[in-house]
């Protein structure tokens, strides 16, 4: 569980907010590899609108931490060029809703260059996207577009749920020779957890059972993991034992871990903020149903956004999955 405190090595373990953990991870990457560069709108003096790049330009200079013109296609397109020259750009898209001007460069160029070149060209580009709702923002600032990238071969998609993972997953994403879309759960930026800067917790694309349980599996990633843990707490009070899987990676999805859990519990509810229709839950439901056809005692249920544009802030509580909605799905699943 993310809340578990590491007590053994006081030196290497510290409690840190998720945003700060990414900041530290970027700092470490900038120190370790002169080819790492940070690019984006307002990433310099401002340190990004969420301060994730705070202090980095001051310490590494304007040629390593680059304030770009306001043009997302340009940001990703020039990052590709820099990668072709041997750099490892870490690009920030200011908010989820502003990645779409860069979508063409991501889908037709970034994702395909390795295959197009028969492996001759590698593009180790990380695209950081603060994503998701829950912060009461205006339009375009609360989207969860991960499915729109997961369908695209050539990309890897990850999303940490806590500071400790964020720290290490960013290290691993930067070291990856494939392009990685790194979805940062913005509403968790300020939540603290322990990070151990010495011990790599495991492979980047491996899911983790963050809470064991026997009756039903909850699978989530990014901002919804904590919610699922709270759901499991609430359900426990009603005597139900829920297992919670933090998927961590959306492409690839770690079906083995989900399968292992579902073979045990026989029931699965997938939770994400993105609309249910054509969302991650669909892929998980389809594949897990295929893999666990004889184990499932109920259909895989999905809890997520509705098929409607993300609503104004005063309605986002209704739009987003919350404790009651997930519990409702749990009830429905258990009722089979």
């Amino acid at each position: 569980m993310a809340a578990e405190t590491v007590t053994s090595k006081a030196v290497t373990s510290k409690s840190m907010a998720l945003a700060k953990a990414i900041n530290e991870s970027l700092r470490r990457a900038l120190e370790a590899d002169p080819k790492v560069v940070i690019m984006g709108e307002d990433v310099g003096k401002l340190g990004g609108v969420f301060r994730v790049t705070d202090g980095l330009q001051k310490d590494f200079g304007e040629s390593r931490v680059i304030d770009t013109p306001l043009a997302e296609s340009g940001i990703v397109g020039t990052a590709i060029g820099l990668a072709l020259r041997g750099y490892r750009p870490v690009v920030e898209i200011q908010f989820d809703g502003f990645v779409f001007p860069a979508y063409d460069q991501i889908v037709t160029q970034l994702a395909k260059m390795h295959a197009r070149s028969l492996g001759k060209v590698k593009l180790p580009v990380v695209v950081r996207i603060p994503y998701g709702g829950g912060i009461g923002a205006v339009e375009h600032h609360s989207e969860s577009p991960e499915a729109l990238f997961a369908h695209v071969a050539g990309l890897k998609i990850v999303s940490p749920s806590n500071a400790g993972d964020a720290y290490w997953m960013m290290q691993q994403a930067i070291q990856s020779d494939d392009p990685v879309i790194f979805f940062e759960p913005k509403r968790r930026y300020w939540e603290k957890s322990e990070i151990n800067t010495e011990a790599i917790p495991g492979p980047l694309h491996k899911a983790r059972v963050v809470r064991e349980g026997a009756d039903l599996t909850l699978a989530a990633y990014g901002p919804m993991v904590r919610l699922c843990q709270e759901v499991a707490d609430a359900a426990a009070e009603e005597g139900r034992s829920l297992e919670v899987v933090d998927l961590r990676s959306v492409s690839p999805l770690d079906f083995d871990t989900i399968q292992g859990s579902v073979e045990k519990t026989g029931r699965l509810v997938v939770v994400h903020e993105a609309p249910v229709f054509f969302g991650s839950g669909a892929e998980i439901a389809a594949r897990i149903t295929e893999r666990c056809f004889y184990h499932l005692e109920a259909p895989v249920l999905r809890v997520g956004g509705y098929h409607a544009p993300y609503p104004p802030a005063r309605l986002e509580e209704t739009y987003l999955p919350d404790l009651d909605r997930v519990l409702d799905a749990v009830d429905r699943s258990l009722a089979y």
Partner: protein
Amino acid sequence: MTVESTAAQKPRRSAGSKAGTTGTKRTTSTTAKKNAGTKKDAEPQLVQLLTPEGKRVKNAEYDKYVAGVTPEELRGLYRDMVLTRRFDAEATALQRQGELGLWASLLGQEAAQIGSGRALHDDDYVFPTYREHGVAWCRGVDPANLLGMFRGVNNGGWDPNGNNFHLYTIVIGSQTLHATGYAMGVAKDGADSAVIAYFGDGASSQGDVAEAFTFSAVYNAPVVFFCQNNQWAISEPTEKQSRVPIYQRAQGFGFPGVRVDGNDVLASLAVTRWALERARGGEGPTLVEAFTYRMGAHTTSDDPTRYRGDEERLAWEAKDPIQRLRRYLEASNHADEGFFAELDSESEALGKRVREAVRAMPDPDRFAIFENAYADGHALVDEERAQFAAYEASFATESDSGSAAVSGV
């Protein structure tokens, strides 16, 4: 709300078009060329009719566009700016008080917005960014309506066709293409309206804006691109977007660009009228760069102390758009104490009215989520709405049965 805006004092449409019909095409295109030739290092030519000290300076090319402006109209422009600033300050305060989630202040940009906004005819169409509160005011949009999206009760709370003022657009630059398409439609209709697209210095880097320049030039669309260069795109100074003045961008697409003092309401009015006349006269697009300054933070979420010093702001305070018109009004005896005093109380009344309107703004109905996703409906939305209704109802039932259980004990 339209009552409160300076509608009565606003320049007559007929006056506006008269000024425009005195064929100025040749002269103006020469200017554009001259301006475009300016070197990077040299300070580019800036159309200015009122100095920061409030002195009226002559301008051979643009004077005619404001020749008919009466003292009453001047007071109207002043009033517009003052009330807009007051409204803006109220909104900032409302954000601090938690009534709004966010506010994007136009502080410092009143002249650019009121000048350009008052140049428009009723049948012209406006495509704003998220900061055009002054233009909205000129169009007669109820200021309280502007606050809905910042409060989080809607994503745009007015009927764009009610005042020919499109919804605020947040995705930087995208509205410039909508404006261009709309203008293509105006041309197709054979109408003599014009369209104006607002955008910022930062937006000038977006591919969409360049494409809007291309389409408007190729189709000779009647659109004015009005760039408020307020020197900053959040924390990035304009040098991060362009190494030459932005108005020069236009020439490479085959239409004129001009830089106007965006803190000079009269110059902004004149230059925009000129550009709108060009559009109406079938001469196609124009780029107006209003050189101004964002005196406040980018939005209430922003912290400008991280990236800019006070000196800059102080220098620009000396060029304040409202002060300079006030000095001119006073020096030329176009306004007396009574006018300013009355305006003060009108301002306070506006602030109060807006404050009350916002506080009274109800939260949207939860079912509103499903209401406007589609115009013609969508089976999945219907299904989800029904499921949501059942889910909501389940609580009522539960708590009913819950209390029943309790009373049963």
